[in-house]
């Protein structure tokens, strides 16, 4: 009689299918995973510690680098937390522009997920189509903010600049272009026999377990729980738009895939409504402590110059208090627990990372499957290490 022996396989941190520097130590019995231990921290930059010594404005570009595949959504989450603590009212036009940017970011994040997830499983074509369309959103980011990946466009109290005619034209063109392109993705994968065999009944998690593990976003909705921060706790005028929250049934890799594919459509739907009903008006609050004066004012008015120096070098004082504010990022609930002490720096800023809890559920999802399925499961959770490690 032969004795059963397990082999330890170290997957990552430098592995193309772990989407960053995630390391998973797998214990294998043949090809079967009997134990999995995720090891994180390889991308830890100490953002929460750095935040305690930066002014509220200086923190904004750091938030871009959390979930860098959908940066605008992080900006929005952070700005909402600060505005709530300051009691700022954001103009309607800025709110709509924020929604457009956040939804474009969600589509960008899902493009990256779709391309790499399919590539990991062996469907190589998809990434070229996904990145072709992602490039169009990059061009919009560049048009409105000057940056392609990390726009930092959403600022405390509003947005950085008004939308140009060119930007609005690009968005309108994309809204028309994208639904047929999405149909193309579906044709490549949804009924593809190899794809369904690799994804159906793989990495199944029930609704109760998914909630208990702290899963949020498309990964939770794949299990059939209709929790979406945009619907449950509407922010930034999301209540004005008509959109659905897609949910899955079984909670396997294929359901999570279908939920994200439907989210593409819903996001385009929201962008379409926002761009057609874009209100006119200011794009920044009139609170002098946060609204940095325009360049033309600074060059002609000494008080505006002084104000700009005060905002940029001293920072904006934010009243003391504590609050938790969350938004629906591309991967799930992205929350900011902000503790202010009345000064220009936060006393403590805790970032609730959705990917952190997605990765914590990996042992539950991986055990019992084959090594090749581990690739499909990690891809279906869509983790971004910038957000896990912070």
């Amino acid at each position: 009689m032969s004795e059963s022996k397990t082999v330890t396989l170290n997957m990552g941190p430098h592995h193309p299918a772990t989407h960053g520097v995630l390391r998973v130590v797998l214990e294998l019995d043949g090809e079967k995973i009997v134990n999995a231990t995720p090891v994180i921290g390889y991308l830890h930059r100490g953002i929460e510690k750095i935040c305690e010594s930066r002014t509220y404005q200086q923190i904004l570009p750091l938030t871009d680098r959390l979930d860098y595949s959908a940066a605008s959504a992080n900006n929005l989450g952070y700005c909402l937390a600060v505005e709530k603590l300051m009691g700022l009212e954001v103009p309607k036009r800025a709110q709509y522009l924020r929604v457009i940017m956040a939804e474009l970011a969600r589509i960008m994040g899902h493009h990256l997920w779709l391309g790499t997830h399919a590539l990991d499983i062996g469907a190589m074509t998809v990434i070229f189509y996904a990145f072709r369309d992602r490039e169009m959103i990059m061009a919009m980011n560049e048009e409105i903010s000057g940056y392609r990946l990390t726009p930092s466009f959403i600022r405390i109290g509003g947005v950085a600049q008004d939308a140009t005619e060119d930007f609005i034209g690009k968005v309108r063109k994309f809204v028309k272009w994208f639904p047929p392109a999405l149909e193309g993705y579906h044709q490549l994968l949804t009924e593809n026999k190899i794809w369904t065999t690799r994804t159906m009944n793989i990495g199944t998690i029930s609704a109760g377990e998914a909630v208990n593990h702290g899963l949020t976003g498309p990964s939770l909705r794949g299990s059939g729980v209709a929790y979406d921060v945009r619907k449950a706790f509407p922010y930034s005028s999301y209540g004005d738009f008509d959109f659905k929250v897609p949910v899955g049934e079984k909670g396997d890799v294929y359901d999570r895939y279908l939920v994200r594919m439907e989210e593409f459509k819903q996001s385009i739907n929201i962008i379409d409504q926002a761009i057609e009903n874009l209100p006119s008006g200011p794009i920044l609050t009139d609170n002098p402590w946060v609204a940095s004066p325009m360049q033309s004012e600074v060059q002609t008015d000494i008080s505006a110059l002084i104000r700009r120096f005060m905002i940029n070098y001293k920072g904006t004082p934010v009243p003391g208090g504590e609050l938790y504010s969350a938004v629906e990022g591309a991967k799930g609930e992205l929350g900011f627990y902000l503790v202010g002490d009345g000064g220009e720096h936060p006393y403590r800023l805790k970032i609730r990372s959705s990917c952190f809890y997605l990765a914590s559920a990996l042992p539950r999802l991986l055990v019992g499957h084959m090594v090749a399925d581990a690739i499909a499961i990690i891809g279906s959770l869509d983790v971004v290490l910038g957000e896990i490690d912070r």
Partner: protein
Amino acid sequence: MDIKKAVDALSRQCPDCVQNLADHNGTCEITVAAQSFHKVMETLHELGFDMLTDVVGIDRMPRAVRFDVIYLLLSTRDFSRLAVRVEAAEGEDVPSVSGIWHSANWGEREVFDLLGISFSGHPDLRRILMWENFEGHPLRKDFPLEGQDFDKPFDTETIKDYF
């Protein structure tokens, strides 16, 4: 779920455990003593708060009871939030709730790693973001921003010990 009703039900089941009830910009927060903490969390889980969204640790350094640990709860049935605060002095343990919510496992590990608050009954209390031989807890207020060894010369011998 009406938060008021939940808190009332909680005070019926564990009398005198809610020390303070506060409203933080729309989120209801209760403060609980460490002795009754685990029982309170079990009761809240039964009352419908089925998701533990996050665990937050705060260092209030000059204060006698140095740390705050805040557990953010959510009910996915009707989307109501509740925050539970428990205070811990330096060297004092907080009872772990990882037996109730699996997400507390990593959440508490992170607080332990970055702030050095220990959780009694945690199945796997190891560092999570920092590496194993790291000394100190970076999010404590007395930890220098530049790192502990910022003014020491780079020494290849000590680096070798890590590998």
